[in-house]
């Protein structure tokens, strides 16, 4: 057993939002765990029996936790497998990811949940956790076995890319899930308003002759759910906010003291509807890319703390699903390998600090999902990301580990490069710049 191997990470810029730590120092792991950390650690040199990794002044942060990832295994292995997603994740500095239940078969029973965690464990790459579905077969009608799924390790409940359409079902779901003190994650988009819609509703959709999805589609579901939440109690998380209206609804609900949290994804603060350009299907996302005003609002909400987390919203689609007329193409973009660099754009543009970036990408998701992670803290598993925040690179998704290449950031220059990813004290990814 190699559990007693000790590794010293020296000359690191330690970033730990939980303790507000941002300083040069060292970190020591033993086996799977962090056992020491500090600015003065190893000032007199590292003992000979400890393996040394010199970080050369680069950032060392708790491993990123991507709280919204679509995995295509089981069911659509031609788009992504647990292995390819695991490789892509660790290349992106992600040490834990939580997948949506929209696999085939759907994660609405314990057997599938356990299949995925067993398969992921064998790969030994990023830790894979699952949400389970709220309703059986994602049909929006009958509740899944939420209590037993929670016991079996589901981190939360969501119908994935589908919204719970029926208000009564949503009410019962909120109540039932609160019974087990679990979180419900909603894709907030009114299904009637968004039906057949393929992009943001506005001048752009008008010019292109494409059916639009109005921004109010997001706010309407959020408003409805918040009113339900006020009588049911429980924890509600709004996924991938994309609109100014949606942000304002969440902001008010938070002020009212409801247990509501939310995340957004990089496309919604990096891109706007102009990226659709001449029917570029890699920019066909769900929710759709919004106006510049909405993009700015998302950035403000990130800065002022209304948005709790940033998730990749990784949605692999193969060529055949994207090389189609815009309306027929599948929704979604891959995001594991660009999550860090896209978020660091906010840092480079002076919107947020590096610590805040790590808080959004690691600490807050860990807290929301009750994971023992997201911190540089003695005694917890050594899930670490070492990165150079300034290294500039061109996104070329052909070089990505992900099986699908549909990155909406393809051809963009981004800053911030993952150098090494450590999971449970083990280096699972390392590269030179």
């Amino acid at each position, binding site marked *: 057993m190699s559990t007693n191997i000790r590794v010293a990470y020296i000359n690191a810029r330690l970033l730990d939002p939980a303790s507000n730590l941002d300083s040069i120092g060292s970190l020591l792991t033993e086996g799977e765990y962090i056992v020491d950390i500090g600015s003065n650690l190893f000032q007199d040199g590292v003992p000979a029996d400890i393996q040394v990794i010199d970080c050369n002044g680069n950032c060392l942060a708790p491993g990123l936790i991507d709280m919204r990832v679509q995995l295509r295994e089981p069911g659509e292995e031609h788009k992504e497998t647990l292995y390819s997603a695991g490789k892509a994740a660790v290349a992106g500095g992600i040490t834990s990811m939580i997948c949506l239940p929209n696999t085939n078969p759907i994660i609405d029973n314990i057997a599938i949940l356990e299949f995925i965690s067993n398969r992921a464990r064998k790969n030994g790459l990023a830790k894979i956790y699952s949400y389970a579905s709220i309703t*059986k077969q994602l049909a929006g009608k009958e*509740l*899944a*076995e939420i*209590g037993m799924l929670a016991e079996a390790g589901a981190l939360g409940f969501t119908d994935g890319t589908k919204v719970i359409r029926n208000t009564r079902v949503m009410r*019962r779901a909120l109540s*039932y899930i*609160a*019974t087990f003190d679990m979180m419900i994650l909603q894709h907030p988009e009114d299904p009637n308003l968004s039906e057949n819609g393929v992009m943001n509703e506005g001048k752009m959709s008008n010019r292109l002759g494409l059916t639009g999805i109005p921004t109010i589609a997001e706010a309407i579901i959020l408003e409805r759910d918040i009113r339900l939440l006020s009588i049911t109690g429980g924890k509600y998380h709004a996924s991938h906010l994309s609109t100014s209206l949606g942000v304002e609804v969440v902001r008010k609900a938070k002020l009212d003291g409801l247990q509501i949290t939310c995340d957004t994804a990089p496309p919604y603060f990096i891109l706007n509807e102009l990226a659709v350009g001449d029917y570029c299907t890699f920019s066909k996302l769900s929710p759709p890319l919004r106006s510049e005003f909405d993009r700015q609002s998302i950035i403000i909400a990130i800065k002022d703390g209304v948005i709790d987390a940033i998730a990749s919203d990784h949605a692999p689609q193969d060529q055949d699903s994207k090389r189609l007329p815009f309306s027929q193409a599948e929704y979604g973009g891959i995001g594991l390998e660009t999550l860090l660099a896209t978020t660091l754009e906010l840092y480079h543009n002076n919107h947020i600090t590096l610590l805040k970036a790590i808080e959004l990408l690691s600490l807050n998701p860990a807290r929301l999902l009750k994971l023992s992670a997201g911190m540089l803290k003695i005694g917890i598993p050594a899930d670490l990301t070492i990165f150079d925040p300034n290294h500039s690179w061109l996104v070329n998704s052909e070089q990505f580990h992900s099986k699908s290449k549909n990155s909406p950031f393809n051809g963009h220059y981004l800053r911030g490069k993952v150098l090494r990813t450590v999971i449970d004290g083990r280096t699972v990814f390392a590269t030179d710049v």
Partner: protein
Amino acid sequence: MNKLRFYHNHILGIEGLEPQEITSLLNLSDNFVENNRSEHRKLNNLRGKTIVNLFFETSTRTRTSFELAGKNLGADVVNMQVSTSSISKGETLIDTAITLNAMNIDILIVRHPESGAVKLLSEKVNCSVINAGDGTHEHPTQALLDALTIRRRKGHLNGLTVAICGDILHSRVAHSNINLLNIMDANVRLIAPLTLLPTQTHMHGIEIFHDMFTGLVGVDIIMILRVQNERMYGNFIPSIREYFHFFGLDYEKLKLAKSDALIMHPGPINRGFELDSDLADDVEHSVIREQVEMGVAVRMACLSVLIKNFDHNKS
């Protein structure tokens, strides 16, 4: 024997009763329990009186229990088969009342699927009415027979901790029991998933749990409610096995309660759904059969006080 204190013409619910009224009924019921166990159980207190069982919902045990209670007291008991009667032909509840008035009935026992229907009927008939269950509102004789069962086993009601588990939202049995236990100063705990609990309760001093493993700790009495078939699949509960896993009573969960805790159930039991089958038959804990016996005595008490009051108020 204590002086009888019960002056109502009808028994429509537990809500609004005074502690001494409940105590009086239970004291009287105690006498009938002894009577019913003797060979000469047939009494003639209600000789010449007519009781009608008017059930708008199917029932076997409650109807039979009332029928026996009436017959033990010497009354003539008639069961009105509602499903085959004029109600299914479109007769309104008020028309039914007018019809019944013409028949010179003394006591009417009514079960109805709509909350408040029994009260409406009681305002229109010229006899005493006992509510044998109205919608999701009240089922007072069930609460009284439960109280009698507990009091005979434990000697008192006040200070006991009673856990009521299951579909509280839709249960008239739960509503009547909560009312009665509150009036009698027992501590009430409700244990259920949030989908089966009301969002607000109008009563004070009730503790709510969503987890049997905390809710059952140290309780004296566990009342298990029947979960109706129509709630099993769908929005309220995902499945039978999940419900039993978290909210079904079995030996393991029972360990958390006091060692002499009693298990009660209004019947009929869904074995292996809300209650472990062996546990239902375990006479160390289960008083389910005793509840049925107490039912007849309690209903005899109710019938006899109502006849007395009605005759008295008429004259």
